[in-house]
């Protein structure tokens, strides 16, 4: 039924081929510009300290990142391998946003089920979402201990926005679709599982995109305080001993980890949306 199939019967016209070429050119220009910005940034970062425009003590150099990475690969008695640090952070983040999605969906469903509950809790949820959760990092450390304070912060920072986004997605379901299910005698549970939840899949994915990023923030901030493992810890450690190359390497790994997470979610989104 797609347009391409429709036209596909006849050989493509010269204009269409020209249009395709223009399309491809446009895409290449965008990609090339993106790459150029990254390269320019790295060159500037490398040259500015070398030309004494800024103090290398504060910024290190991009060229030191790879050697630093190789150096940190080896575990020492005092320090775990950088791979262990990275894995620890990524694992805590995945735990954080997965729990946030599960709890968030369950709580949003409960709020949908009992409208009275939503009306009571609404102001508390809004305030909880607006609170700077990072203010609780020291408290969480005391309450939950070194490991669980990190998971706790990751969950706390992403849970409330997850609940609010999913609940508003539930509210956005066309009431006529619910009415349709009711004309067949659907129970409240059937309305939830056959209409509201499947109809909210795009909202769930949009929420996942938001809370994966937030969970990573929660983990890194939690690690600043309490961890002896993780990229947040490594950043803290590097800055304390004034080794900016360690800090920059850890930050680069964070950037790579969040890009990979974003790619994975985009891939999931494409897989799910193909059915729509």
């Amino acid at each position, binding site marked *: 039924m797609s347009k391409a199939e429709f036209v596909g019967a006849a050989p493509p016209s010269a204009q269409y081929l020209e249009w395709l070429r223009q399309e491809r050119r446009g895409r290449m220009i965008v990609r090339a510009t993106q790459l150029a910005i990254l390269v320019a940034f790295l060159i500037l970062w490398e040259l500015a300290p070398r030309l004494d425009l800024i103090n290398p003590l504060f910024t290190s150099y991009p060229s030191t990142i790879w050697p630093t990475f190789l150096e940190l690969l080896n575990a020492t008695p005092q320090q775990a391998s950088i791979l262990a640090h990275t894995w620890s952070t990524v694992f805590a983040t995945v735990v954080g946003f997965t729990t946030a999605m599960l709890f968030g969906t369950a709580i949003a469903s409960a709020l949908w089920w009992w409208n009275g509950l939503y009306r009571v809790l609404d102001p508390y949820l809004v305030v909880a979402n607006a609170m700077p959760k990072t203010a609780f990092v020291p408290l969480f450390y005391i309450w939950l201990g070194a490991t669980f304070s990190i998971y706790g912060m990751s969950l706390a920072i992403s849970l409330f926005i997850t609940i609010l986004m999913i609940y508003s997605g539930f509210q956005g379901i066309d009431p006529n679709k619910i009415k349709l299910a009711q004309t*067949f005698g659907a129970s409240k549970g059937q309305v939830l599982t056959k*209409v509201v939840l499947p109809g909210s899949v795009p909202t769930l994915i949009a929420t996942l995109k938001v809370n994966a990023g937030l969970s990573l923030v929660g983990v890194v901030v939690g690690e600043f305080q309490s961890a002896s493992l993780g990229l947040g810890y490594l950043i803290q450690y590097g800055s304390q001993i004034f080794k900016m190359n360690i800090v920059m390497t850890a930050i680069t790994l964070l950037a790579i980890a969040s890009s990979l997470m974003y790619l994975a979610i985009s891939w999931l989104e494409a897989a799910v949306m193909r059915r729509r």
Partner: protein
Amino acid sequence: MGIAANSPKVELRDVGLRYFGREGETEALKGISLSVAPGEFVAIIGQSGCGKSTLLSLISGILSPTEGSVLVDGGDVTGPSRKVGYMLQQDYLFEWRTILENAVLGAEIQGANMAMARERATQLLTRYGLGQFLQHLPRQLSGGMRQRVALARTLCTEPDIVLLDEPFSALDSQTRIALADEVSEILRREGKTAILVTHDIGEAVSMAERVIVLSRRPGRVKSDHAIRFKTVDGARPAPFAARNAPEFNGYFNALWRELEVHVEG
């Protein structure tokens, strides 16, 4: 069931419905009494906001009247029933389900045998010319095709009574008239009792054997018109043919005048 042939399929006795809101209460329907015989095709017309759709919601059991009673096959309606199928103003197909999965939705909700439901839905869809679209998604179909899927979804649960709430209003006029022909042919052949709600006088006259006019809010039964066409074989003409019958304009104008009274006051 032991129901005499002349006992009504659907009966409303002095039904009233009020909606409550902070601004006060709204009387949507008042003192409605009417009955529909088995196999009859009745149209209910009235201006928008006169409570036509509310009337269907009462018969389907998703709303309860605040006064009076609604009966189907002589029994009080207490909730949605398998005897009643409801076609809404738009198809409301679920975009995440294939055409076949959409058509079996009712059967799935009612906990019916799914293998049989799928077989029946496939038969219905094939009969409506959608046989090669079973695994397609709703967005790949045109408006008229989607509304046919909605009809298959309604009939898949084998209701005796089919409620039609302006089911063609979202379609372009050509598709609308063609689909009216198909739907009324299907419902008559299967011997269904049908209640069509519309504000389109032509649609009502061409499809129904009886047209009931509702007054403005609160809706009451204003008048009840039998629609008869003389044909060679005595059978009811298809809606499109009915539009060209000599009697059509007489009925149309009579109903038009009744609705116009409301506009003036």
